[in-house]
C-alpha cells in the first residue's frame, strides 16, 4: 500500500538510502520544474517534450517527475521537495528559479541541478540555454522580405539580455534585406499571458505592422494573425507571424512563416547519460543551431523560392559556424561603434546585452 509512504517513514528511508540508490539498479530519478502549464504549446511544452524524450530514450532506466506552473517567486519549496524526495537530477527551467535553485543546491550537494537561462553556477549547478538569437536572424530575413508595409511588430516580454539580443538580431537581418524596414516593439511584462499577448498583437497590427514576431510563450499572437486570413479578397494577404519556442503550425496554417523551436531533447539526453556514466560536471552550455538546440521550423509555402533559399543559406551558414548574427559593422543605437567591419560579438557582451543597435527606435524600458 502506498499509504505507508505517507507516514513520513518512507520519506526518511528515501533520504537515508538516496545515495545508495543512485549506484544500484534503481532507475535514475530526474525532475523538471516548469514555469508555465505543459499545455502552453511554447516554452514549458518544449521542456516537457525533452522530459518525454528522456523517458523514451532511457526507458526503465529513468524515472521522471515534473511540476508545472510553479511561480518563480515561490519555487524554493518545490525545488527542495524534489531534492528531498531523492531526485538525482533536477532541471529548473526558468530564469527566476536561479536563486532558489542555488540555495537548495547548497543544502543538497549530492543532487545535481541544471538551471535554464541563468548565469550563476555552483559545483552541482549547471546552466544551459539556447542561442535563440541565431534563429532570429533567419526570421529577420524572412520578415524583411515578406513585409509590405515595412513595419514589423515585436512582442517582447522583459528587457533582459536574451530578449534584447533577439530584437537586435532580427532587426539587423531584416534591415540587411530591406533598408526601409521599421520595428515597433511592445513590452508586455509577462512570459505567458494569452490575453495580454493578443492585445499587443492587435495594437501592433493597428499601427501598421504586417509581420509579427514574439518573444512570449503563448499561441495567442499566432491565432490573431491567422484570423486576418479569413474573408480575404483577391490578391490580399493577411498578417504573418512566427512560431515561438514550439512550431505552432496548427495555430497558423496560413499566417505562420516559420518558427524557432527550442529543442532540448539532445541536451537533456546527454546530461542524463552523463549522470549515469558518472561524468556529470557543472557546465555552462550555450548551444544554437549548429548543435540542434535551436531549430527552425519549415518555411511557409507562400514564401517565394528565392527568399526561402536566402533564409536557408543563412541558416546553413550559421549551422556551419560561417556566419555570426552579430558581425560588424554594427553601431549602437546612440551611433557609437559597437562592432568594427568584420568583427563578431563576443559571448560576454551578448550575455549582458542592454542596448539596441542603430536604427531601432524607442528606449529599452527601465
Amino acid at each position, binding site marked *: 500500500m502506498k499509504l505507508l509512504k505517507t507516514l513520513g517513514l518512507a520519506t526518511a528511508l528515501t533520504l537515508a538510502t538516496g545515495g545508495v540508490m543512485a549506484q544500484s539498479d534503481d532507475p535514475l530519478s530526474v525532475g523538471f520544474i516548469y514555469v508555465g502549464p505543459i499545455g502552453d504549446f511554447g516554452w514549458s511544452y518544449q521542456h516537457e517534450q525533452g522530459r518525454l524524450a528522456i523517458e523514451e530514450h532511457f526507458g526503465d532506466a529513468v524515472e521522471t517527475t515534473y511540476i508545472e*506552473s510553479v511561480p518563480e517567486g515561490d519555487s524554493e519549496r518545490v525545488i527542495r521537495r524534489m531534492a*528531498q524526495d531523492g531526485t538525482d537530477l533536477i532541471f529548473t527551467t526558468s530564469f527566476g528559479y536561479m536563486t532558489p535553485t542555488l540555495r537548495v543546491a547548497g543544502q543538497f550537494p549530492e543532487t545535481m541541478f541544471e538551471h535554464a537561462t541563468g548565469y550563476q553556477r555552483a559545483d552541482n549547478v549547471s546552466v544551459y540555454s539556447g542561442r535563440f538569437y541565431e534563429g532570429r536572424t533567419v526570421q529577420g530575413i524572412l520578415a524583411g522580405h515578406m513585409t509590405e508595409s515595412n513595419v514589423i511588430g515585436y512582442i517582447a516580454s522583459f528587457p533582459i539580455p536574451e530578449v534584447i539580443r533577439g530584437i537586435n538580431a532580427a532587426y539587423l537581418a531584416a534591415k540587411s534585406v530591406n533598408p526601409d524596414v521599421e520595428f515597433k516593439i511592445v513590452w508586455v511584462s509577462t512570459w505567458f499571458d494569452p490575453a495580454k499577448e493578443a492585445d499587443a498583437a492587435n495594437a501592433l497590427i493597428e499601427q501598421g505592422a504586417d509581420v509579427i514576431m514574439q518573444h512570449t510563450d503563448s499561441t495567442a499572437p499566432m491565432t490573431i494573425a491567422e484570423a486576418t486570413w479569413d474573408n480575404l479578397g483577391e490578391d490580399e494577404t493577411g498578417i504573418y507571424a512566427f512560431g515561438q519556442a514550439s512550431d505552432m503550425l496548427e495555430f497558423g496554417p496560413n499566417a505562420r512563416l516559420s518558427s524557432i523551436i527550442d529543442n532540448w531533447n539532445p541536451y537533456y539526453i546527454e546530461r542524463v547519460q552523463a549522470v549515469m556514466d558518472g561524468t556529470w560536471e557543472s557546465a555552462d552550455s550555450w548551444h544554437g543551431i549548429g548543435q540542434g538546440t535551436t531549430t527552425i521550423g519549415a518555411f511557409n509555402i507562400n514564401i517565394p523560392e528565392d527568399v526561402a533559399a536566402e533564409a536557408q543559406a543563412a541558416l546553413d551558414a550559421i549551422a556551419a559556424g560561417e556566419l555570426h548574427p552579430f558581425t560588424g559593422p554594427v553601431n549602437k543605437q546612440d551611433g557609437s561603434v559597437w562592432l568594427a567591419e568584420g568583427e563578431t560579438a563576443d559571448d560576454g557582451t551578448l550575455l549582458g546585452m542592454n542596448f539596441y543597435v542603430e536604427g531601432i527606435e524607442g528606449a529599452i524600458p527601465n
Partner: protein
Amino acid sequence: MIRLEPRLTPSRAMVWGTPALAVLATMIAGGILFAMLGKNPMEAIWTIFVDPILDPYSRDELFVKAAPLVLIAIGLSYGFRAGVWNIGAEGQFIVGAIAGSAVGLAFYGTEAIWLLPLMALAGMVAGTLWAMIPAFLKVRFNANEILVSLMLVYVADQLLRAMVAGPLRNPAGFNFPESRLFHDSAVLPLLQGFPGLTEYTRVHVGVLIALLLVPLAWLLLRKHLLGFNIQVMGSAPRAARFSGVKPAMIIYVCLGLSGAMAGLAGLFEVAGPAGQLVPALPQGYGFTAIIVAFLGRLNPLGILAAGLVMALTYIGGENAQLDLGLPRAAISVFQGMLLFFLLGLDILVRYRVRFGKRGAAQ
C-alpha cells in the same frame, strides 16, 4: 417548490460548522474529480490533506505559506467587520516589500540589529500610506474604496517592476530585473534548532511574529473599545454614530491597520523566503487573504486555522502533482471548490430551506 427563508439569528453551531462542512464537501467532490481522472481518490485526498501535516518538511512549509495569509487576513478582518472593503491588500503588500527592500539595500553591507526593525517599520508605513489613498478618497469624496484599493494593486505592481528594473536593480545582475541578494543583517533569521522544526527549515522570525499577533488581534477585537466600535459600526452604523463613533475615523483606522499588516507581510516575504526583491514576489497573497478572512469568520483565531487550511491545499496540491501526477489544473479546481462550498453553505447559515408552498408550510 424549494424556498429560502431568512433566519432571525444565524445558528452559532452553523457559523462554525459550515467551514468544516465545506472542507468535507470539497473532499467528496474533489475525490469524485480525482477518480474521474483515474487516480485513487482516497490516496489523493490523503496526499493533499494529511501528508503535509505528517511530513516534517511540509509542516514547516505550511507555516511559511500561512504566515502572510494570516497577517493580511487579520488586518482585513477589522475593516470587513466595519463595512470597509479593502480589496487592495496585494498592493499594500507590494509597496511594503518595496519600501522595506529599499531600506535594506540602502544599508547594504551594514551589519546591525536595528536594520530589520527599520525595514519592518518602513514596510508597515508604506503599506499604511498606500491604504490611506482609498481611505482619504472615501472620506473626502465618498469614492468607492473597493475600486480605488483594487486599482492601486496594479499601480503597485508597475511600481515594483520599475523599481527592480531601475533604482533597486542588482548592479552586477546582467541587467536582469531583480535586486541583489540582501546581506545577512537584512534577512529574517530562521528558527533553526527550534523544537519540531527541520534542519533546513525556512520558518523565519516573521512566522513567529504572525503567530504572536493572533492573540493580540483577538484582544483588540474583543476587549478594546476600538474593536467594539468597529463591530458596532458594521452592524448598526446609525447606533454607532449616536454613541459618538466617527465613521471617518473608523475608515482611516481600518484601512490603515490592514495596510500596515499587508505591508509587514510583504516585508516578511521579501526579507524571508525571497531574500531579494524580484518582480515575481507578489503571489496573490493579498487576494487569497480575503478568502482566508471569511473562511475564518473574521475572527483572529478562526483566521489562523483558515490560513493553515489554505496553505495545506497549496502544499498538498504540489505534493499531489509530484507523487500522483495530478495536473495542476485539477488542483486549482479543487481549491476553487473549497470557496464555492463555503459560500454555498453560508446560505444555510443565514437562511432556512423550506419545501412546499408558502401557505402550506405555515
